[in-house]
């Protein structure tokens, strides 16, 4: 299986995603460049974290128009697995590949910390290796990670099982205290109706080595290998 990790101007965790896939998980991975619409025959695509174009207008708003994104949209619409982490999630929402939007954290501050998320569905390209209800320890680091959507959309997401991850406390309960950014219904990640596109605010690529604090993020990448 061949992975692609996109670098937009202002991507920051692109190198970490490459390291995670290539060195830690020993995968075949190629860097993709925002100006190049050619996907180089990859089987799965990662949109990394960072501040594409400085995120000066709105997170992900400008990146969505990159030449490579036109190809990503076509790839996703054809059922190809695509995962957006943090800024990648924001870009997927801006592109319309995922419903909803991400706004400023309720605290108005950037927040960097370890969080726990509960896996709400295993029926996505990136969670088949997890157990439903499993709790993963994965860090977040963002200023605009508060997931919002209107009530109709939220209800649809719940009804169709499109909420993939929720922030929970140590024992797996959805509480206000466990919610680091004010996301509606503690939503940390969602998927599209087909389950091949997943976006999440936490950074699974920063949770793949025990030395660095957690290996829980591995499961997301391993799921796509199945």
């Amino acid at each position, binding site marked *: 299986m061949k992975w692609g990790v996109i670098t937009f101007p202002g991507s*920051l*965790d692109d190198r*970490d995603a490459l390291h995670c896939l290539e060195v830690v998980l020993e995968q075949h991975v190629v860097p993709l460049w925002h100006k190049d619409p050619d996907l180089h025959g990859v089987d799965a695509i990662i949109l990394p974290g*960072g501040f594409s174009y*400085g995120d000066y207008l709105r997170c992900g708003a400008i990146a969505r128009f990159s030449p490579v994104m036109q190809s990503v949209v076509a790839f996703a619409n054809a059922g190809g697995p695509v995962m957006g982490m943090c800024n990648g999630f924001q870009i997927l929402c801006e592109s319309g590949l995922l419903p909803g939007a991400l706004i400023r954290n309720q605290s108005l501050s950037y927040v960097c910390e370890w969080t726990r998320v509960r896996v709400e569905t295993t029926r996505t390209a990136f969670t088949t290796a997890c157990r439903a209800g499993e709790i993963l320890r994965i860090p977040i680091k963002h200023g605009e990670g508060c997931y919002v959507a209107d009530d109709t959309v939220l209800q649809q997401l719940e009804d169709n099982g499109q909420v993939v991850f929720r922030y929970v406390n140590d024992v797996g309960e959805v509480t206000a205290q466990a919610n680091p950014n004010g996301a509606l219904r503690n939503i940390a990640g969602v998927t599209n109706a087909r389950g091949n596109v997943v976006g999440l605010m936490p950074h699974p690529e*920063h949770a793949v080595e025990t030395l660095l604090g957690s290996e829980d993020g591995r499961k997301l990448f391993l799921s796509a290998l199945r």
Partner: protein
Amino acid sequence: MRQNITVTPQVAQDHGLTPDEYQRILTTLGRTPTFEELGVFSVMWSEHCSYKSSRRFLRNLPTTGPEILQGPGENAGIVDVGDGLAVVFKIESHNHPSFIEPYHGAATGVGGIIRDVFTMGARPIASLNSLRFGALTHPRTPYLVKGVVSGIGGYGNCVGVPTVGGEVYFDEGYNGNILVNAFTLGTVRTDRIFRARAAGVGNPVIYVGSRTGRDGIHGASLLASREFDAKSEELRPAVQVGDPFTEKLLIEACLELMQRDLIVAIQDMGAAGLTSSSVEMAGRGGTGFALNLKAIPTREANISPYELLLSESQERMLIVAKAGCEEDVRAIFSRWDLEAEVVGTVTDDGQFRASWDGEEVVRIPVAALTDDAPVYERPTAEPVDLAERQSLDLATIPLPTDYGQVLLQLLTSPNLASKEWVYHQYDSFVCGNTVVQPGSDAAIIRLKGTTKGIGLSVDCNSRYCLLDPYRGGQIAVVEGARNLAVSGVRPVALSDCLNFGSPEKPEVMWQFQQAIAGMRDACLALGLAVVSGNVSFYNETEGRAIPPTPTIATVGILADLTNHVTQWFKNAGDVIVMLGETKEELGASEYLASIHGRTAGAPPTLDLAYEKRLQDVCLTAAQERLLSSAHDLAEGGFAVALAEACITRPEQPLGATVAVSGKIRPDALLFGESQSRVLASLPRTALPRLQAIAGAANITLTELGVVGGADLNIVDYFSMPVSILRQEWRTALAQKLTNRPQ
């Protein structure tokens, strides 16, 4: 448009030049300088750029060692870490701009120090910050804290360099003059190091990065080189705004450029912008520089040649390329959507020249601006009230009635409360190397592709420095090194940021001299080299100087990452021991200040040889994997360190039961800050070996108790639930910051 201003002694004075200095300019040039030349002299001869008051003292610091590849003099220092790798690092101040505009001042400070590191070919992979604010009760403090912290995060987070540690202190001595010191470390292959030394007559000088605006003109000469007063407000248009996105592109483009064989030298445009970067590159290379100012990319129309020379617009670099490589350079930058313009050439006449519309507006010998710049032997004098401040009659300090309450008060005091509110606003994960996150004595990052790690810590106790700058300078150095040693990291080198008042005051110059002497002796005793640093004078408002603050950022090497040690207890049943000795020392302590409202007495004594042996014991114990935890005793003394070992544990806190005894006052026993002490925990089976190591080194080892339970119990004094201690300690700072209107 060129400004048509005739230079007179008055104009020179308005530029911050003394009559003597102006006379020296006339002599050097043999004529009256142009307005542009005057501007160039004023910035290059400013305290900030010329180190004219500090140079003769800085020479005393040890700067070499077997692992030191580059000491002071370049954009940053370099330490060889083996495996063909080196680390490049430096600390720098951005105090004055941060006081005027906390968000952008702090942000551009981070941007500047990152450029100093990647300009040497290194990829920046870790930052630290050292912050000093006025009393939390001062009306402006919360505003400044929030602005500075979000500025550091706003820039660092967006540029992709993790902030892995730092320190924050509050003291009314900084009410009118905060300190923002930023540190960055990068890694480079030893065969890929770049220096900023111009060479090759005829080689093109290329300008890359953001366009030039009118930002920060005279930042170096007028802001960083004089004290604050009512007039500072008028200097406000000088405020710079950072653009971390452009900086990120610059990092990538420059590192890509440096992988190819296209350039001779590269330097960022920091303080004094285009002028200082040109002059310094020419100075180091012994060449001249000829600039065509008309070619500089500008942000707005009608920027004058004077402004172009002095602008401190951010995110700009100056490159000396190899002749014929211009197009290749341009292609790399255009791939990253950045501009690159040829703006001059390297010459062999030793002159710094700049032209405008064919007219030469600057022609100054480079040496006059560098090696031959003024140097001052400013008078020094011990402050008259020093002896009085150092005297402390312990009989006047009543013993507490409730020691548990004192501990709680200390743990929730702004200086000792958890700094989580601060560091949770910083990305500490990006780059994927952070093995020990903020929250332990030292941060530890790994070096990818090796088994090695780098340990980092930034420290200074300015109360000690105020009461005895020599001892304070010593302790700043040994504390940094001790933070690394307890973490299992061998300290190697440091970068210092010397924040002081006006060098024109003999008492300040004396503090400076003493602090450096202390640092020097400590470095020699511990085998550390100073490889880079920065001096920030004129930290004064309305004639009142800040406490002397020589901030020390220490860097060390850990040969095997898996041997690192953190400060919190790990296992119930582990034995708790203390290495070192507690004396009856309460002078200059946090306890005296927070509980008794006194800043008095002499700082704790220090035996450098003992300290060195103690650190070696810690390193050996870590290497032999004897320890579950090790924590340096610092502000708040034994009781605070013990509480921290219980409550800084990332998971649920762990309690402890200990018994302490000694023939000294109980408050000194619990809260005194005697140096050279470490609190460790370890399995009982490992204790004999630790005793043997400590015994061989002649270091006192005292068994105190065991880890476990839900309470912190100091027998005969108090017992408190660790969950409460932790909750209060964690939330205190945020509460104090947000409970009051802005």
